[in-house]
């Protein structure tokens, strides 16, 4: 399958500060790809480099085009939703949506109406009257109304209530079924496990792992609970099971419970 995003040896520094350090990964066409990492790991720097907002070393190709020299062509086929979702405060929602459509030189009115109805966006309000969640909804409409080939979403569900998160992911899955590739950065691991097929984990500007979400969830890590002399002890074991069995037999426990860790616990290992 063709790669819709290819990032090769990309480095970005802000003076002495690190942004991202020699990162490389690729996203396949039609994928829903998660970009995971703690705050300050370099997720937004990587995304902004992809969108041509930052100067960087290395190569980024999006939709087969060079992100440095063919930025305008790329952005015609990309829908982007920033984490902060800020718009011109004195403008009305409908004017913001219309402005975004005009900049794409497309009549997106039908799709915009559908998205606004699904997300219950009040288009008559001014941006300054909206909460973060409602600004996020406007941002979703602006990112999706021109039916892009690639959606880049930076923490898309932060600020959305659970009902809207559900509606948003339904829209995302619909678009994905129609062929849109989705690249989203997120902290919410439950939604990554539920909706994403592949993921990359970034920490301190470096990519730690790129794999399927299923493989990332599969691990030798075990959460162990041991009872001995009326006391309960917890520990984690990462390594061959035979080593755990040796360790447990040496402890001579009264009872033992060995569990697979949750996705959150697995990712916490990478985050720590």
């Amino acid at each position, binding site marked *: 399958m063709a790669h819709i995003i290819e990032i090769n040896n990309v480095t970005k520094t802000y003076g002495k500060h690190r942004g991202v350090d020699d990162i490389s990964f690729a996203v396949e066409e039609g994928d829903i790809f998660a970009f995971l990492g703690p705050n300050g790991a370099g997720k937004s720097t990587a995304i902004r480099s992809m969108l041509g907002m930052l100067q960087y070393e290395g190569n980024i190709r999006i939709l087969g085009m060079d992100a440095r020299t063919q930025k305008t062509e790329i952005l015609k086929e990309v829908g982007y939703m920033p984490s902060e979702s800020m718009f011109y405060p004195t403008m009305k929602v409908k004017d913001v949506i219309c402005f*975004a459509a005009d900049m794409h030189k497309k009549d997106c009115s039908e799709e915009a109406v559908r998205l606004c109805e699904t997300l219950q966006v009040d288009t008559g309000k001014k941006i300054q009257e909206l909460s973060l969640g409602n600004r996020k909804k406007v941002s979703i409409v602006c990112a999706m109304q021109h039916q892009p080939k690639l959606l880049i979403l930076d923490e898309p569900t932060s600020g959305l209530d659970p009902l809207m998160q559900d509606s948003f992911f339904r829209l995302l899955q619909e678009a994905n079924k129609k062929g849109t590739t989705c690249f989203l950065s997120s902290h919410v691991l439950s939604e990554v496990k539920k909706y994403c097929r592949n993921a990359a984990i970034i920490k301190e500007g470096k990519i730690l792992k790129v794999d399927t979400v299923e493989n990332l969830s599969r691990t030798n890590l075990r959460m162990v609970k041991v009872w001995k002399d009326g006391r309960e002890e917890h520990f984690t074991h990462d390594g061959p099971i035979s080593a755990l069995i040796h360790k447990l037999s040496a402890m001579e426990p009264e009872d033992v419970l060995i569990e697979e860790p949750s996705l959150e616990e697995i990712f916490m290992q990478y985050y720590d």
Partner: protein
Amino acid sequence: MTLLKQEWKMNFKSLLIWTLCVGICCSGCILMFESLEDSMAEMGQMFAEMGSFSAAFGMDKMSIATLTGFYATEISIIFLLGGAMFAAMTGAVLLSKEEEGHTMEFLHTMPVSRSYIYLWKYVTLLLLIMVFNVVCIGLDVVAYVAIGEEITMAEFVEYHLLALVMQIEIGSICYLISAVCRHKQIGLALGIAVLFYVMDIMCNIMPDLEFLKYFTPYYYANAAQIYSGGDSRMGLMFLGLAVTVVVVILGGVVYHKRDMSA
């Protein structure tokens, strides 16, 4: 064009306020002149004999006792300062407001190049300055007609053309600042507009500081000089135009290359 329409809408209120304030002040002064004419004759004589002070405001060249003199020495200052401040403030805000207001990510992920954004915002600046000038000049003409005075057309046109070039030069310098800075530098922009005016006064008063005429655009747009038929300052206007071209290109290069903060 979409960006021009958008910026026009966003700057319309500011344009309206500045245009009406400056335009009404200038035309109001023209309308008031008739009632002030008697006292102006005495005052004009007094002002003309105040040495450096008279030179600073061009009153050594023209008498404020006549409407033309009053227009060239007093009303022109309101218009030049008001216009320069409006141009400076507008120029300083157009690009940097995107980063300060965190709307940069929205605008810069539209399928347009940075050059497109830079150029159309500059076109907006030019349009706003031109509309400001057209309305203010229109109000002046209405006031002249209302009091039945004749406009000395050649000088009037030359002065307003030079004032337009001056405003564009100051607006462009501040547009460069806007391309470089991440925050709106309104204070700095207004400071620049006033500093250039002070430089003009200083080089009119002190012969040792005459070299300042190469730095301040107020010098070539000096209405008293134009109306009194003094030496042409067109050379300095062309220098001003050259500065405008250089700062606009420089701003474009910087804006094209620099990182955008969210």
